[in-house]
């Protein structure tokens, strides 16, 4: 086998090697995450739902699984709303700042 052919064979082997390495790494990471299951099982019943804390801004839905189904102004049936109803109206930030300042003073 020539050196060029050997190099080419190595290139062909790169794909199964990468797939194998990624599958093993993913399996190991999943096993580590599964070991954290008891903590998740203990905390999740205290939360309103199992939604991920990824959309907690002023405009975005924090618990879409509970707020979206049958929502008054959803874009579609059982379809999460990318721009939730009411999102165009900003929260009364000034009023809340005043309330927070009043709270601190007390």
């Amino acid at each position: 086998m020539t050196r060029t052919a050997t190099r080419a064979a190595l290139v062909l082997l790169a794909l199964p090697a990468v797939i194998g390495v990624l599958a093993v790494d993913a399996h190991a990471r999943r096993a580590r995450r599964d070991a954290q299951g008891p903590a998740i099982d203990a905390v999740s019943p205290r939360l309103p739902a199992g939604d991920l804390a990824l959309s907690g801004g002023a405009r975005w839905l924090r618990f879409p699984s509970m707020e979206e189904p049958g929502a008054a102004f959803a874009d579609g049936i059982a379809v999460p709303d990318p721009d939730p109803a009411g999102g165009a109206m900003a929260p009364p930030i000034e009023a809340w700042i005043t309330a927070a300042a009043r709270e601190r003073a007390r």
Partner: protein
Amino acid sequence: MTPGGPIPSLLGFAAGSLWRRKGRAIALGIGLGLTVMLVAAVLFLTESLRAEAARAQTGLPDVVVQRLVAGRPTVLSEDDAKPLAGIDSVAAVRPRVWGYVFLPALQGNVTVVGVRDGAPSLDGISGALEDGRDMRHGAHEMIAGSALARYMGLAIGDTLGMPSARPSPQLRLVGTFGSAVDLYTADVVLCDEADARAILGLDPGQATDLAIDLKNPEEARVVAGTVIDRMPGARVVDKSTLARIYTLAYGRRAGLIFAACIPALIALIVLALDRSSGLSPDERREIAILKAVGFSIRDVLLARMLEALLIASAATAAGLLLAYAWVFWLGAPGLRGALVGWSVLYPQTKLTPAVDLAQLLGIAAATVGPFVGLSIVPAYRAAIVEPMEAMRG
């Protein structure tokens, strides 16, 4: 043929042929690799988020009941639980107190959740709490998400007063959630129900919603129908709907990202069509010479197939590796904001891969198979032409 058998020889010939046209091969490989990377990264991230959402579903109530007024959710009375508790198959109805509070300092919402007295303690559960201990009822204590505590500069023992329409107590931080649950609790404040009511402006006896646990979870849909009969206008969400929303949400977001990638995908299809529509005069002449020196049609096709296989294998391997590294090693910068969400209090936890061997093989097969297949057609057309005729053009 050279020693080593026909396949190694053809492989060496194919590699040499690619090297002679390395500019084109590299351009094609980079285009294919980047496309694989983008598609694989979106799939990796979507599957990972769905898996994380599914991980916390064991704690979900079987049915959640909310009251609607003028089409909008509003608070309900704890007394609303009584007629529902009598439904067959209902094991327990739990009024829950929770809601959102906007913190001007964060310019974002936190989720305040009231914990009923008698809830199982988090102390001693490995990974549930990063620092401190579980809260005690009646002591104006709270547990907060680690991201929230960090952003607010709170340490164990510090107090926090939250803006509220009514006088509400300052809460002492006694514990922060561990990284194992950071994805669910980054913006959460757990306190006792009385404190949560004061902060959220709920009267005693009022609740945000009712959580119903069933003796037989399979009867959730039947119970949901009975709840609506007994509580007209209620909004009832069963566990299967709660679980399905995440499949829909991330499916839709992934679809939007794929839609945004359509120009890149079209460019790749054009490249692929370029391969399938024909060969350059140089390539035709090369095939003719090969046939003239004794290559069979099968050898020519095999050589062309190996050329395509070399490009596709290298590009797919690089694309998969880069996508994996982008999502799970680097945290998907750039992609995370578009697909995941826009939280102010972002969880710091790295995502866990949900992708398995079968999915990786599927992506590889879906890329390599068509790419190699497309290369054979024009090669066959050129290989069946007589060498002299091909060399004359």
